[in-house]
């Protein structure tokens, strides 16, 4: 994998070398403009590539960055170069707003919201004459860069070398973010939002951060275009700008690192090379976009053979043997459920269900289809709000908390359907699930600080340990979607373990498994219980449940009808009746 010091080093060398070499102002400014577009699409690619959100209005961030710098420059009289870094701020602020408004709703809404935001800003810029001088625009004086005269460069040379350096820095930061826990969280949220949430990933916050960082980069790009255009006008917010950034990101390959930068360069050079078709520029862009979406959805980069693409390979175990799950507290009762009630439009799903789980226990939750077992899990894990009742986990109520908060408290659930990020490897999936293990700041992620490297190594070892606990170590570098079904279900448990649960809620782990796989699963669950993990298991495989559970709780039509040891429950008349019907009536 490319490392960020390599990117930065190469950027520095190129900035100096090309600064000297490209002394033709025309060429220098064309390449510089390509880099501006490239930086813009790098920012756009953060939302499009990571989150899969289409945007038709990223020019909102671009234009806002330009206007903010222009306004501050004119009002304060400070040098443009000094004010330039300020362009990050409005992008972040607008990103938080747009991200919060739309990102939780998903793709189409994001496209609409960004487009509308860009149009609102365009209208404001065009109509608030006292502030922006309207369509006339604001003239921004751009002085020479400090090192320009010392090196005997013309302004275009200095501008180009600065842009190469900035592009390298942005590229390195984006690269760092993508392989940080936050970057992995973005992919998890895109592929399986509920699973991500159940593993303790705060999905809304991850999405808002994504849009905010994307906005910051796009805003910076907008401010960087000033030395080329000198005047900021409302057109900066226009659809043409948004479309160009989008096209560059898609053409280059939205999911790749370098793709958007290359795409930006192509879209700056192409119109220059094809001067004679200048009028048809946008139309040609549109045809390219249509062809790429129809025939080459992964962009140019997808032409590269799959095995050459970077994969985060599993490292070797370093023998550190990390603790698999957080030590349970001293409380004897880990989970206390009282009077849980939930109904959907008149249908009662759970009806005053009360039970408790002691520390170290393996409790089975059984009942015929439609008994309310999964609904019960969904309420415990925060995905469904109960109509009434009390859920006390480890001495404190978790009622009304978001699923990721409950996961962070130590109650982690799995899903009936093994919902995984299918196009990641087994190891990458479990690594993503270590999100809760050690908290990480966005700053440490972007700068890849030494502390983060240390914690990443620890997370990697935890992921390996979780895979080893489920005997999946040999499968680490295989694609998750290529695993046989039985092992996919084990992978789901490995991911839940990586979230370091104190109480694990397993929803039908044996469903669809053959006998051999079910036996393997029973062994795994026994092993986990021996290691001290508390579990609640929902399953229809009664033979396995009777064999492994300490206690069994039986639900029928949403109500609890029996609870006790497997032997007691088996003899319970109501349970027999629920499963076999009215015997001998």
């Amino acid at each position, binding site marked *: 994998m490319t490392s960020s010091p390599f990117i930065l080093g190469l950027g520095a060398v190129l900035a100096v070398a090309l600064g000297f070499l490209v002394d033709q102002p025309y060429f220098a400014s064309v390449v510089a403009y390509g880099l501006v577009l490239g930086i813009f699409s790098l920012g756009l690619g953060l939302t499009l590539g990571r989150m899969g959100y*289409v945007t038709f209005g990223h020019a909102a961030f671009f234009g806002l960055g330009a206007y903010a710098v222009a306004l501050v420059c004119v009002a304060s009289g400070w040098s443009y170069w000094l004010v330039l870094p300020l362009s990050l701020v409005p992008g972040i602020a607008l990103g938080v707003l*747009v991200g919060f408004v739309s990102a939780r709703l998903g*793709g189409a809404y994001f496209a*609409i919201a960004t487009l509308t935001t860009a149009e609102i800003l365009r209208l*404001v810029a*065009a109509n608030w004459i006292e502030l922006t001088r309207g369509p006339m625009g604001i003239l921004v004086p751009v002085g020479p860069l400090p090192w320009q005269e010392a090196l005997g460069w013309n302004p275009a040379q200095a501008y180009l070398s600065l842009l190469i350096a900035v592009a390298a820095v942005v590229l390195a930061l984006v690269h760092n973010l993508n392989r940080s826990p936050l970057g992995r969280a973005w992919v998890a949220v895109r592929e399986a939002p509920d699973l991500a949430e159940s593993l303790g990933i705060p999905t809304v916050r991850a999405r808002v951060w994504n849009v905010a960082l994307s906005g910051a980069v796009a805003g910076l790009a907008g401010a960087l275009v000033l030395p080329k255009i000198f005047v900021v006008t409302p057109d900066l917010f226009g659809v043409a700008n948004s479309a160009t950034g989008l096209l560059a990101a898609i053409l280059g390959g939205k999911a790749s690192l370098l793709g958007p930068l290359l795409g930006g360069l192509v879209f700056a050079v192409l119109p220059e090379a094809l001067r004679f078709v200048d*009028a048809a520029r946008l139309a040609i862009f549109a045809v390219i976009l249509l062809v790429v*979406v129809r025939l080459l*959805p992964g962009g140019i980069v997808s032409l590269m053979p799959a095995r050459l693409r970077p994969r985060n390979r599993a490292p070797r175990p370093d023998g550190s043997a990390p603790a698999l799950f957080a030590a349970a507290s001293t409380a004897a009762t880990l989970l206390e459920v009282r009077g849980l009630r939930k109904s959907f439009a008149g249908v009662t799903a759970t009806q005053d269900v009360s039970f408790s789980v002691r520390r170290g226990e393996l409790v089975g939750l059984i009942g015929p289809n439609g008994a309310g077992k999964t609904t019960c899990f969904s309420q415990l894990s925060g995905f469904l709000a109960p109509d009434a009742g009390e859920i006390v986990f480890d001495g404190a109520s978790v009622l009304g908390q978001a699923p990721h908060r409950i996961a962070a408290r130590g109650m982690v659930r799995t899903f009936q359907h093994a919902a995984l990020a299918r196009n990641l490897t087994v190891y990458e999936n479990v690594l993503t699930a270590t999100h809760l293990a050690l908290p990480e700041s966005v700053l440490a992620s972007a700068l890849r600080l030494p502390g983060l490297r240390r914690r990443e190594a620890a997370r990697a070892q935890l992921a390996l340990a979780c895979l080893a606990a489920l005997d999946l170590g040999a499968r680490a570098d295989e694609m998750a979607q290529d695993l046989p079904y039985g092992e996919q279900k084990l992978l789901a448990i490995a991911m839940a373990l990586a979230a370091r649960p104190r109480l694990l809620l397993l929803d039908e782990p044996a469903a669809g498994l053959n006998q051999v796989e079910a036996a393997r699963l029973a062994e795994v669950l026994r092993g986990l219980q021996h290691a001290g993990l508390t579990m609640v298991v929902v399953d229809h495989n009664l033979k396995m449940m009777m064999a492994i559970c300490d206690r069994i709780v039986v639900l029928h039509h949403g109500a609890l009808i029996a609870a006790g040891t497997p032997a007691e429950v088996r003899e319970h008349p109501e349970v027999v009746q629920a499963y076999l019907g009215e015997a001998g009536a």
Partner: protein
Amino acid sequence: MVDILLQQIANGLSVGMGYALVALGLTLIFGVLHVINFSHGETFMLGGLLTLIATTTLGLPYLAALPLAGLGGAVLGWGVNRIAVRPLLARRDGGADVLLATFAVSILIHQAVVMLWGPAPARIDGVPGTFELGPVVLTGQRLFVLAAGLALLVALEWMLRRTRFGVELRAVAQSQFAARVVGIDVDRVNGATFGIAAVVAALGGALLSPVILYSSSMGQVVIIKAFVVVVIGGMGSVSGAVACGLLVGLLEAVLGLVAGEGVATAVIYSLLLAMLLIRPQGLTGKRAR
């Protein structure tokens, strides 16, 4: 002042009827195919352009131009569906890819019209005459927009409720899978839905262009307003689209009177963001999850 206000309300309602017709197709396609057709605004624009060509170059009377615009809309809808929607629907990222492909198509249509016909706005003579209702004076065209729009809506409602195709359409909207199981040709229903939406949008353009002036960018403007209407009315809701279309037209006219056109448009657009923040499922929509 009250007189001017009443006048603006009447004007706003007629423009709102045009918005409703565009938003209706957008929401119908979303309800049935679960995708957003970004090029929908350009169909509206094409309806206006065809009316302009028919009434000036061909010298036809305005009313004869309407079927032509509807036909043009149908052809365009068929083409967009074939090129940018149907082949992408089955993909895992189908929704996003359709959005991108129809975005590309919308740029293409707009650029093609600008290059072949020019960007200059043009006046179209609609239904002549004026009618006085107390202090309010309505042009014949505005009255015609309201009447024809209402007739279109009634016809659509009848089709959705009373015809076999309408039942099939609503079945596909509820569940493509179940519709397929009972033998409904989902591809055909999808295509027909697309066609109907396009015809209605083109007719909207033909009706409204004499009121608001034809221009090559009228599609780009109307599509955002249609988004506002659809988000406020609830994505996928037909009655919501109609009610909010009228409401947005009304609000725009009244605000324009008070604060000027630019500010009015900005406020209308902001309503979309506010709605997404407060009630993302729209006024009529059910809360999802």
